[in-house]
């Protein structure tokens, strides 16, 4: 999160059990992060209220105290309207704003135009509900705001994240136990990928690529000068492939020819490369287009190493079984290529690599393999030093208050049941915003509403949004081998009214088309989860139902992410 510096969820999972309000915004937590949702359910049992902001009537709305059925891609408008209410009613946390933030006046001015009545027209959320949830959030003692790809997979997703963070700054719901701002991560190591510097603009430990302090350190450890310019993000790389500037791609464990928006376009781009290397565990569509395919071990159970989860916890993965055939761990394949190109890397174990990370990244410097084993996982940042010194660095009175609430309700939380002598690492981020001296203030980033790039029209009258379902994962490479599971196929969710108008019945097959491509046949599921005009599809059975031939490649220049959550389509009975 650019507002604060390093990106990551600010709270721990246990805080969901010790808070007063949980907001899930563009996050189908129950289906996409089931075990985080379990923490939330215990929080609700402990007395927390839950608010769901989602265009669909997902199952989680049944458990919620309030469901805001926001129109797809209008989240900025809704967030700004909530801020408008909070400021108009004087419910903002003025003390926190003055001590810990900057640029509030510009933000106040920006949101002054977003009255609840105006927002109701844009967002489909009744003005009174906007007021109610705004008051609920502003007056809660502790509140945690969570989001996932429903916020970020838009052409202006980074702006939407700024709009949500601003709500946290406005109310002071960040930097104390039980309050925070959490992007929940979709893959097992999204957090770690970013933390480790597999990014165009940042290096391991969150160092900016051009940080004058970091560059000499990296050049010393790596023994080579660093490139003099910032890199391209995923979307910019694809543009550079199209223009011919990028001639060679090395793709590890990703399936961009199939998982990215406007699949047919990406397929053409990949086939135009001079040289494509794909390293994966399965022959994905991208792999089938490669010049060289390198068989990898499944990292989570066939290699040694670490990953980082959505509460910033570094955890050890272990080689429990052998990889099949000649498949090898990713990092050793990469070291072999590097050395054949003259690099002289001499890592012998995953721990060797990790210890180099610790030299370069202060956030991880205190997290040794030995300590990981002892503590069963450590939340960054954890600075190196004497164990007594670095344990329990979070404010004790807040922790005590948090756990007390749960104990009084007669139920020991799962967290307190696991007794640990000390906790290394950091339970929640930005406690320093409440300290005596705030050295680095968190800025408000005022942003304006802008709807999805492609809205329904006469020719393509439906809005399609996409997502993940409980039992299935992404492009399905890892989840098509279940023995028995409910609905093991792609479904198109459509409401009864629209289905009737099209002559479509539950279980019948339909053809779905956008300006970019056609899915010839997908089974219709008539449901009240979607409203008139809105359709939903997953994307976990791409060889049968290539959902991403429909989606639009409208890229957020700040994040490189495509607007996978909104495009316009038409629906006809399948031939």
């Amino acid at each position, binding site marked *: 999160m650019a507002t604060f510096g390093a990106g990551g969820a600010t709270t721990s999972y246990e805080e969901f059990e010790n808070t007063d309000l949980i907001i899930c915004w563009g996050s189908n937590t129950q289906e996409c992060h089931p075990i985080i949702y379990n923490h939330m359910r215990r929080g609700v049992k402990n007395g927390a209220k839950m608010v769901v902001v989602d265009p669909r009537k997902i199952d989680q709305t049944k458990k919620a105290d309030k469901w805001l059925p926001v129109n797809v891609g209008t989240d900025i408008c809704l967030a700004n309207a909530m801020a408008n209410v909070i400021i108009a009613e004087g419910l903002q946390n003025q003390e926190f704003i003055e001590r810990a933030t900057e640029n509030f006046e510009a933000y106040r001015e920006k949101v002054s135009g977003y009255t609840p009545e105006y927002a109701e027209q844009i967002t489909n959320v009744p003005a009174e509900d906007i007021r109610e949830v705004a008051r609920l959030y502003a007056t809660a003692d502790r509140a945690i705001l969570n989001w996932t790809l429903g916020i970020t997979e838009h052409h202006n997703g980074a702006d939407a994240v700024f709009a949500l963070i601003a709500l946290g700054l406005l109310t002071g719901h960040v930097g104390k136990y039980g309050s925070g701002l959490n992007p929940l991560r*979709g893959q097992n*190591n999204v957090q*770690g990928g970013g933390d480790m510097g597999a*990014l165009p603009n940042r290096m391991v430990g969150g160092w900016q690529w051009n940080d004058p302090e970091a560059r000499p350190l990296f050049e010393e450890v790596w023994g080579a000068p660093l490139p003099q310019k910032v890199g391209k993000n995923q979307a910019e790389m694809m543009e*550079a492939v199209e223009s011919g500037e990028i001639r060679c791609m*090395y793709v*590890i464990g990703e399936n961009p020819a199939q998982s990215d928006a406007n699949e047919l376009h990406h397929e053409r781009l990949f086939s135009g490369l001079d040289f494509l290397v794909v390293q994966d565990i399965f022959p994905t569509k991208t792999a089938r287009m490669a010049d*060289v395919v390198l068989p990898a071990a499944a*990292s989570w159970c066939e290699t040694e190493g670490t990953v980082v989860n959505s509460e910033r916890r570094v955890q050890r993965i272990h080689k429990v079984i052998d990889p099949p055939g000649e498949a090898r761990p990713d990092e050793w394949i990469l070291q072999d290529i590097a050395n054949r190109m003259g690099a002289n890397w001499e890592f012998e174990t995953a721990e060797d690599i990790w210890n180099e990370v610790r030299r370069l990244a202060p956030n991880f410097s205190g997290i040794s393999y030995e300590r990981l084993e002892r503590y069963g996982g450590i939340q960054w940042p954890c600075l190196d030093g004497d164990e007594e010194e670095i344990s329990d660095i979070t404010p004790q009175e807040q922790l005590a208050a948090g756990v007390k609430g749960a104990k009084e309700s007669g139920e020991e939380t799962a967290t307190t049941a696991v007794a640990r002598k000390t906790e290394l690492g950091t339970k929640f981020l930005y406690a320093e915003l409440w300290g005596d001296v705030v050295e680095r203030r968190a800025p408000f980033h005022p942003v304006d509403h802008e709807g999805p790039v492609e809205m329904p029209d006469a020719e393509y009258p439906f809005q399609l949004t996409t997502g993940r379902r*409980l039992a299935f994962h992404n492009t399905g490479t890892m989840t098509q081998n279940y023995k028995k599971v409910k609905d093991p196929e792609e479904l198109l969710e459509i409401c009864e009214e629209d289905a009737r108008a099209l002559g479509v019945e539950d279980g019948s097959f339909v053809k779905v088309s956008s300006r970019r491509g056609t899915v010839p046949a997908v089974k219709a599921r008539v449901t009240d989860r979607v409203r008139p005009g809105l359709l939903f599809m997953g994307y976990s059975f791409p060889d049968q139902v290539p959902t991403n031939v429909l989606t639009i490649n409208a890229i957020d220049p700040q994040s490189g992410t495509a607007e996978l959550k909104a495009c316009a389509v038409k629906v006809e009975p399948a031939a």
Partner: protein
Amino acid sequence: MATTAEVAVGTERGRTICGFCGVGCGLVLDLQDGVITKATGDKENPSSKGEACIKGREGWRHVYSDRRLTRPLVRKDGELVPASWDEALDLVASKMTQIKNEHGGDAFGMFSSSRSSNELNYLSGRFVRQVLGASNIDSCNRA
């Protein structure tokens, strides 16, 4: 510390972290003759405390899929055909060196994996910047 030896093939039980979503639940894998037979939540894990969802408990079967890649493949006469590791890696290194010499680091792009380890992702960043002399690297799509 649970070393590689303790959890190596042939033991009855191994601990690791689920490979699906970003919750990062601890899993205990039961083994029979080195083959996973069951996955359950790891009670000792400080994030998940014994819980795991259907993907964690059932999704492990993908590692035994007959679709797994087991040998390096190299494209010859338009077809991907099996090759030795040496042949595949030599080809990758020589082609990348050639492209670097002819076109410089800007001619490269790398997608690193949000499904792989920190150690791999760190080395990917180092490889791009140090070895290719490039900065075009990104991770995290929803593959």
